[in-house]
């Protein structure tokens, strides 16, 4: 993945999460991964298209997802209902959109696809054909892993 793409995603994730959750966010060490990876329970996916192609996946446990949705809605949600799902989807959209805006300012053109939310137990994501950058974000509400796989169009 181009070096120039990394920071916009890390910054956008950090900014948006700090702002909407109102808690301290800590960034873990970035690393590369290209193999099947288990998904914690809730995964929001935003596709990228244009000069470059790829996808951004936001991965968290259901407990974390409920806590984040509660914090963003300022009410205590008990289960992962439609409101919670819509909230997590929106969070994925906000972070990706801010990253893409930053990239646009640097001269890179990306388009977004509408986000999709997947939840369930024992899920895996397999993208052996692409190398993904993993950006772990830690907070008192739980951990979110942002999994970015972007490549230049061949």
């Amino acid at each position, binding site marked *: 993945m*181009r*070096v120039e793409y990394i920071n916009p995603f890390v910054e956008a994730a950090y900014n948006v999460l700090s702002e909407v959750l109102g808690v301290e966010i800590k960034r873990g060490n970035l690393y590369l991964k290209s193999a099947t990876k288990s998904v914690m329970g809730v995964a929001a996916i935003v596709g990228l298209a244009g000069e470059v192609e790829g996808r951004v996946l936001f991965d968290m446990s259901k*407990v974390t997802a409920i806590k984040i949705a509660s914090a963003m809605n300022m009410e205590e949600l008990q289960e992962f209902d439609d409101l919670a799902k819509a909230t997590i989807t929106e969070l994925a959209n906000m972070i990706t959109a801010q990253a893409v805006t930053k990239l646009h300012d640097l001269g890179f053109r990306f388009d977004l696809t509408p986000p999709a939310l997947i939840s369930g137990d024992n899920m895996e994501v397999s993208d052996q054909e692409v190398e993904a950058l993993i950006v772990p974000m830690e907070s008192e509400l739980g951990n979110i892993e942002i999994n970015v796989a972007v490549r230049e169009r061949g």
Partner: protein
Amino acid sequence: MTASPTNTSVVNPEKVQRIDFKMVSFTLAGKEYGVDIMKVKEIRKAGDFTKVPNTPNFVRGVDNLRGDIIPIIDLRIMFHLPAESHEEHALENIIILRLDDLVLGVVVDTIEKVIGISKDSIQPPHPLFGDINIQYIQGVVEYNNILYILLDVDRIFGKPTHKEESIQHKVEDIQVVDPSPTPVVTAQDSDLDLQFITESLASLAGFYVGPHNRDWVRNRLIQWKADRKAQGQDFQLQAREDTEEFLKGFLTGNSSRFWTEQEIQLLAQNLHFSGNTVSVWNPGCGKGYEAYSLAVFFRTQFPQTGVKIWASDNDLLNISIAPSLAFSEMEVDEFYKPFLVSTKAGFQFSSEVKNQVFFEFHDIRNMNPITSVSLIVARDIVSFLTTEEREKVFAEFFEKLKPEGYLILGQNEVVTQEADWKRIGEGPWTVYQKNI
């Protein structure tokens, strides 16, 4: 609500261990070991094995297992561990292993139990496990506060998977270590030394010896032994510093500075490019010195040819510096001046040059979408990959190069599949051209 339900609902799914690996645990000289249960055929007690002459001392003999004659190996003797003395006709604990087409029995001190663990909890072996050679260890696992060393029985007894890590050699080596020294032993001795060095380099420095660099290592070992002897030291590599010292001279000098004008002209003599644009791949580019040198190489030597350079590295810190690499006037030849601009941070390359170089955070062991390149500059990369990774990467180099494309390796590295390549030139600028 009297009891708090949150305690149960906050169970982290990661913490719930999935048991997907079972091992049989046993002891050797008071230490706990484990072996994959899928390799274990059965467990039994037996004794009075039939001796077989002319076998290594760790072969206790053969035993009759319900009509099948199987060899009996004593792991304690094989690993030079103290064996408990036993009465002449006493029965001993035997684990019968089945490895592909081979059934054999191993004698151990005690057999404990079957333990179910999660595969993820197996940790890689640590080079400091002295008793048993690290390459025979599959990993280490903790269970009920006891550390079990998980033995890789396929590698101990099975067929070798990699030529240079062949266990077969080992067994032969052990056989020739015989009380009566003959000239053959000295030849085997130096092979054994090479084997030791090979293992130390792999575990301490992540440097793998193989057909791509064995000649250099062999020659270096001769020199190294002489040097260490003169200093009154053992030649074995004990720590990382030793490996750095040993590998001094292996690494290609000019991959972490800009190429000189002379080097650029020398390289240009051997390369020819056709077409309006060419793609270049530079894995392991570090801070980018090599990638920028390549850009200037094309601008000065092949001005008619447009170039696109994909430079990648798996060190995030270095690769992050690369796109805006700044340096002082001292670091750069007069020859580079037309391509530089002066900034507050120091000299940088002009945007025309920068626009030709694409820096990627990428691990060569993973996939990448780069295709149809005319030149690959991969200096000292393949020596830091395991045998399997290395062959995969070589195959990838071959696949990604255009017909008659060029590959430049480290100054002391050679290709492993000679039939695929034509060698051009000698010395640090040896170039391999892809055969069609």
